[in-house]
């Protein structure tokens, strides 16, 4: 005997432009089943029109983020037994345009991150036959920033983003911070032109939902504060 889960899943059919919900009951007998396993079970056995996105199945690619009982999570790495309820309301990531059912438009994430010049700015080519020096301490500054898998969980959990769609959002700002703190980067002035306004680092209301939901335990809120501190001290 397993546990019986009752799922209410948000549906959107773009062909007819209609929203609805579907209810499914799934008995989970395998103790290690994840939410993605349950989605796949529904698709393969109950309703093959249920649409969701996934790829790696191991919490690395960031494709499968959804909202479960109000909180954004990665479906592939969340085991059913760790969810705190047998009644699950499942929606797409909040604040994102929905393509179909649980699938949201990820190009929004792409658009935001593109704006912050997410690459290492280098005025002069380094010597081609060796790597640049970077101390262990300088490299350690990137820990907690470079691991972002761009799953969108933090953006979906950000009330500021819900209100203001032009806000860069926690993900893009975290990505920006990764370069601002890189000892090899020479683009700090240019990037601050983009970051230091109300749609950038001053748009954040330090609510810290982003930190609560990040599946990689990163802290975009802290990164934003870090950026503000740099701007105050003109450390660029």
């Amino acid at each position, binding site marked *: 005997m397993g546990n019986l889960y009752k799922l209410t899943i948000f549906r959107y*059919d*773009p*062909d007819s432009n209609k929203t609805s919900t579907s209810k499914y009951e799934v008995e989970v007998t395998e103790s*290690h089943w994840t939410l993605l396993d349950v989605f796949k079970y529904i*698709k*393969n*056995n109950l309703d*093959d*029109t249920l*649409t*969701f*996105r*996934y*790829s*790696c*199945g*191991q*919490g*690395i*690619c*960031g*494709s499968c983020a959804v909202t479960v009982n109000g909180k954004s999570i990665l479906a592939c*790495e969340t*085991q059913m037994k760790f969810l705190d309820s047998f009644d699950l309301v499942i929606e797409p990531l909040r604040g994102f345009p929905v*393509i*179909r*059912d649980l*699938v949201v438009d*990820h*190009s929004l*994430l*792409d658009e935001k991150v*593109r704006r912050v*010049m*997410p*690459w*290492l700015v*280098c005025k002069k*080519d*380094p010597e*081609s*036959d*060796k*790597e*640049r*020096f*970077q*101390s*262990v301490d300088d*490299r350690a500054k*990137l820990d907690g920033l*470079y*691991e972002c*898998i*761009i799953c969108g969980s933090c953006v979906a959990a950000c009330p500021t983003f819900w209100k203001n769609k032009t806000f860069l959002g926690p993900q893009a700002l975290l990505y920006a911070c990764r*370069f601002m703190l*890189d000892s*090899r*980067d020479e683009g700090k002035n240019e990037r601050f032109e983009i970051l230091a306004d109300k749609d950038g680092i001053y748009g954040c209301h330090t609510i810290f939902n982003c930190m609560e939901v990040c599946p990689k335990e990163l802290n975009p809120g802290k990164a934003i504060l870090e950026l503000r501190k740099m701007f105050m001290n003109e450390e660029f």
Partner: protein
Amino acid sequence: MKDPKVLTEKVVDVPLRNIHKHDVVIIGTGLAGLWAAIKCKSAGLDTACMTKLSMPQRSHSTAAQGGIAASLGSLEEDYWEWHMFDTVKGSDFLADQDAAEILTRDAITIVREYEHMGAPFSRTPDGLIAQRKFGGHVKDFGRGGPVLRACYAADRTGHVLLHTLWQKALELGVRFYTEMFAISLISDGPKCAGVVTWDTKNGGLHAFKAKATLIATGGYGRAWKITATSYSYTADGQYMALRAGVPLEDMEFFQFHPTGLFDRGILMTEGCRGEGGYLINDLGERFMKNYAPEKMELAPRDIVSRAITSEIEAGRGINGGPYIYLDIRHLGAEIINTRLPQIREISIKFAGVDPIHEPIPIVPTAHYSMGGIPTDVDGRVLFDGKSQIFSGLYAAGECACVSVHGANRLGCNSTLDASVFGRRCGLTIVKDFANLEHLPLEEDSAKMAKEEIEFIWNQKGSIRPEEIRNELQTGMQNYVAVFREEKGLLKMISIIEDMHKKMKEMLISDKSLAYNTTLMEAMELRHLIAAAEAVTYGALNRTESRGAQARRDYPKRDDENWLKHTLYFRDESGFRFDYKDVRLTRFVPEERKY
């Protein structure tokens, strides 16, 4: 942008609505695809890159953990010749040595270019790129001990390499098309005009006209039940090439990684053993001493995978079960947290095991496709598998077979292969470009793609695709895995024949145009079956044991008859084999001992 007419009964009469034109079109945005894109775009070519996933960063390259091999020689003595020898010996002497030489020479440049683009490699106390030990990488032409050769960023090396390339491609202005599923090449004999794709978001077909088309779509690990690869690893590129008349090379060589998390198969990087982790059976012994007494846990993957499988079969799995332990507790919390943080995270999330306090249950897992689309050393696809160039068509990365891995790939040589030959392929396209042209699109350019969609769309059967997928994965796991023998392989062939019939009786009730993943998965299943068929026939045909192909009924390597590559041709009338010699330059084949 919707084109619902594509899906009507008279599908063949419908013209393509969306035609795109670029100088270069790259299918796949993993390490190989992005490197090529960067080189093409840097040379001023109008370059487009497409992925069936929602962002380039979702590509399976991101899952690579342990590192990228390069004999930088900055931390201790090391030379590309040593690396080349290890690669050739690791391949059980089936690698083409001219290609292995390019791989290991270019490795040094590649790693430095990554660093210059901004890759956040882990560092040594001297501020240099950190390197760790890895299976099969040793000093002094196989005579010395393990060498520090794997450059890494904690255990997220693939993630940082992929993100770094994407960042560079963005800076240069490469055009990306996402959720665009490539279905068929537009070709006429050995001439490629581009590719036809399915727009996943909206439905409908698109044609991409290109002077140069690059296939960089990765492998097909999803043909097995226990696998370390993404759900997206479904042989799409290999299938497109087969249908265009290209053979597949050395498909029987499919690597099982020794340490996949029990029982899903998620990768526990070889870096665990590189850092000093042990493998332990139910008796608590480090059993590798019975299989590779000198190299122990750092023997090449084929050897370690066979050792683990043999222990489990002999009843020495943990509590007699189908897994053994990978123990890294003795490394201590600090090393685990700084060098293997993701391993810890995955163990806790998926197995409820914290490796700081408990050993990790592991089992060999389907991992890497050594075989694939045959190319020359510059990435040009070979129409006959030997010397005839397929004009305008290129392949690189895991979907291609150049061949540098031969019968078995060394750890950290896959991120390297994809990078070196992706980059080289980009440079080749730039070099060839003056002689390439846009070929005209014919009326029936999209015929093959339409057939592919229709085949699935118009089914009126009762069998769910999942049922067929399950049969495929279970069969491959049982009969075409770490060990093989004639009886099992014949059994798998009959399963495949049965699956071909069942594919014609599928039930697809989702008829929506937008984001129809049921349709997508059914197409992917078709690709997987084609790849599995090539693997199984290839394994049956090759009556010897070499690297990842371990035949119980032919336990010895047979250089006299089999020091050659397999070429598997397939069309509607059936399949046939051809062969080509292994290119030997520096090293004479010898018995492989560790």
